[in-house]
């Protein structure tokens, strides 16, 4: 077992020398070295790295202590956890559960009640300043946070407490990143994304409802391999997965450019697999890797199963009108109005005004003419 190198990592000696490396854990769980190398290769390609990085990933996993991850759940639906445990490369059972802290994760941990909370405190104490905090869901701030109680206290208090000693924060899913459905207008509980509550830590957003399993595992793997956050896009999402729109890599893109669209559900064009743009597909405005990686081991993703993208990895996606309209509804102007309908109506009103103005102008001109001719005839007489 390669144990060398651990002490070389500054600041990690002492407490962390007792922690197993990833490789140790994997071998202990019966994973062969061959499978381990396969995993490293797949991770390298998922991250868009060249073959030269495969040994680097392998080396990091063999020598570096496991990154302690504390996973807390706020106001959420657990779809992130559900997605995460379906990670295929590697299989969550074998690797991922050993990789993140087994000390604290509501859904997966064996402990419950006071024992669980004690484990959380112990982890914070043990890995102070070195653990990654993964947040699933978000804290509601209204009524002093009473809308989400965890271990008898408002979740927001727990979040602040755990975040205080974290090295970095991962916001899992649309909830933690942007607020998702619980933050949709009018947001009665004042559900607030993590980055608006925790402002003094590096935060990486991994949005989606849920995010893709491989994206989740790869983000953690990247942070372990390179000891830093991956490159982020302008909204704080890892650029390697959120750098392009679903539309940019969509396999139906040729039908979009050709102008061949599904016109209604279950029409002939739908059977032919034409572009879902007219059915309100949000692929052109959504940054995610669905059209490249897919869900459930690449089996499918929404567009592939014949439904447009709903834009779940974008900020405020519940408030962008119907999932089935390409042009967003504007609720300010009535129940069912979008920018174009508002525009047509406004243009109609202005057109009517112009017609009326023309009529008045013509009438007035005729009137003036009549008056003038009367005046002239009176003078002549």
């Amino acid at each position: 077992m390669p144990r060398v190198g651990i002490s070389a990592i500054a600041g990690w000696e002492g407490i962390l020398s007792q922690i197993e490396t990833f490789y140790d854990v994997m071998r202990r769980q019966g994973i062969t070295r061959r499978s381990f190398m396969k995993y490293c290769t797949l991770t390298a390609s998922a991250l868009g790295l060249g073959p030269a990085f495969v040994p680097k990933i392998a080396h990091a996993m063999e020598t570096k202590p496991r990154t302690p991850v504390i996973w807390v759940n706020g106001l959420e639906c657990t779809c992130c956890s559900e997605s995460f445990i379906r990670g295929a490369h590697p299989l969550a059972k074998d690797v991922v559960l050993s990789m993140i802290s087994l000390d604290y994760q509501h859904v997966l941990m064996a402990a419950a009640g006071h024992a669980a909370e004690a484990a959380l405190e112990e982890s914070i104490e043990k890995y102070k300043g070195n653990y990654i905090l993964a947040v699933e869901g978000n804290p509601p701030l209204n009524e002093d946070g009473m809308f989400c109680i965890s271990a008898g206290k408002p979740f927001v208090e727990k979040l602040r407490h755990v975040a205080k000693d974290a090295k970095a924060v991962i916001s899992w899913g649309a909830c933690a990143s942007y607020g998702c459905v619980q933050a949709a207008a009018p947001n009665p509980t004042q559900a607030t994304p993590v980055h608006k509550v925790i402002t003094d830590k590096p935060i990486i957003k991994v949005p989606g409802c849920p995010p893709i399993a491989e994206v989740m595992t790869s983000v953690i793997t990247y942070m372990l391999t390179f000891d830093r956050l991956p490159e982020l896009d302008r909204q704080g999402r890892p650029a390697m997965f959120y750098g392009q729109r679903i539309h940019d890599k969509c396999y139906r893109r040729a039908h979009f450019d050709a102008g061949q669209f599904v016109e209604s559900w279950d029409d002939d064009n739908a059977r032919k697999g034409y572009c879902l743009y007219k059915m309100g597909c949000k692929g052109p405005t959504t940054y995610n890797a669905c059209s490249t990686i897919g869900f459930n081991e690449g089996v499918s993703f929404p567009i592939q199963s014949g439904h447009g993208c709903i834009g779940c990895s974008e900020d405020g996606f519940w408030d962008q009108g119907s999932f089935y309209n390409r042009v967003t509804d504007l609720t300010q102007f009535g129940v069912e109005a979008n920018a174009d309908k508002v525009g047509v109506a406004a243009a109609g009103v202005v057109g009517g005004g112009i017609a009326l103005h023309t009529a008045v102008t013509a009438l007035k001109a005729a009137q003036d003419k009549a008056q003038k001719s009367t005046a002239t005839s009176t003078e002549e007489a």
Partner: protein
Amino acid sequence: MKVEAQDTPEELQKSKVDFYSASVLTGDATREDLETIKRHTSVYVYETPVRLWHWVNALAIVVLCVTGWFIGNPPPTMQIGEAVDQYVFGYIRFAHFAAAMVMTIGFFGRLFWSFVGNHHSKQMFRLPVHKADWWKEVFFELRWYLFLEKEPKKYVGHNPLAQIAMFLFMTVGMTFMIVTGFALYAEGLGADHWLWALTSPVMNLVGNSQIMHSVHHLGMWAIVIFMMIHIYAAIREDIMSRQSMVSTMISGHRTFKDDRPE
């Protein structure tokens, strides 16, 4: 303000009048213009680059509106051939982007011309809002459109109301469309492109791409409404006012129907 008839042309050339406080020929008349009217019946207002810009811009806007409408609301599916042989929507988008480039370059050219061109070429970009007299003229013009004034005034350049419309819908409106449009265009170019970096603050300010699309649509409708009013007002004033309107944007010369100076 009175104009001295005995001024030599050289002096006139040099002299600047505070044209907004002038009671004669309110709205953008220079001393030189006033003198010209006495000698000729027309004033050269719109120089060639301005006229060229006007018509190129008009054409570009029409193309942009039509293709923009189709991008948001695509035409019915066409079956010309295999998807690889057919590029209907691609061409619509191409026309939109090409017209946008023409409009943008034209807009910057027009902005440049407002610095080197004649006095009237600056009107569209600068509103003299600090001048009380100018506001008086705005209200006079409003009353004229509300049928409350019997006779319109003579204007060499834009009347103050038209100037406000030009400024709000063209200068501000087109800037808005260029900024939001290029923010959307940069999404297609990708995160490595300099335009992406340049437009990122705008995208972050607006929130997301979908909202950006919505505001870009609303901007188009503002310009469509301006277009309707602009064409109506130009034709109406050609008939009702005391000077030429439509032909001025073709020849550049403003002609007057009577010789009263006010």
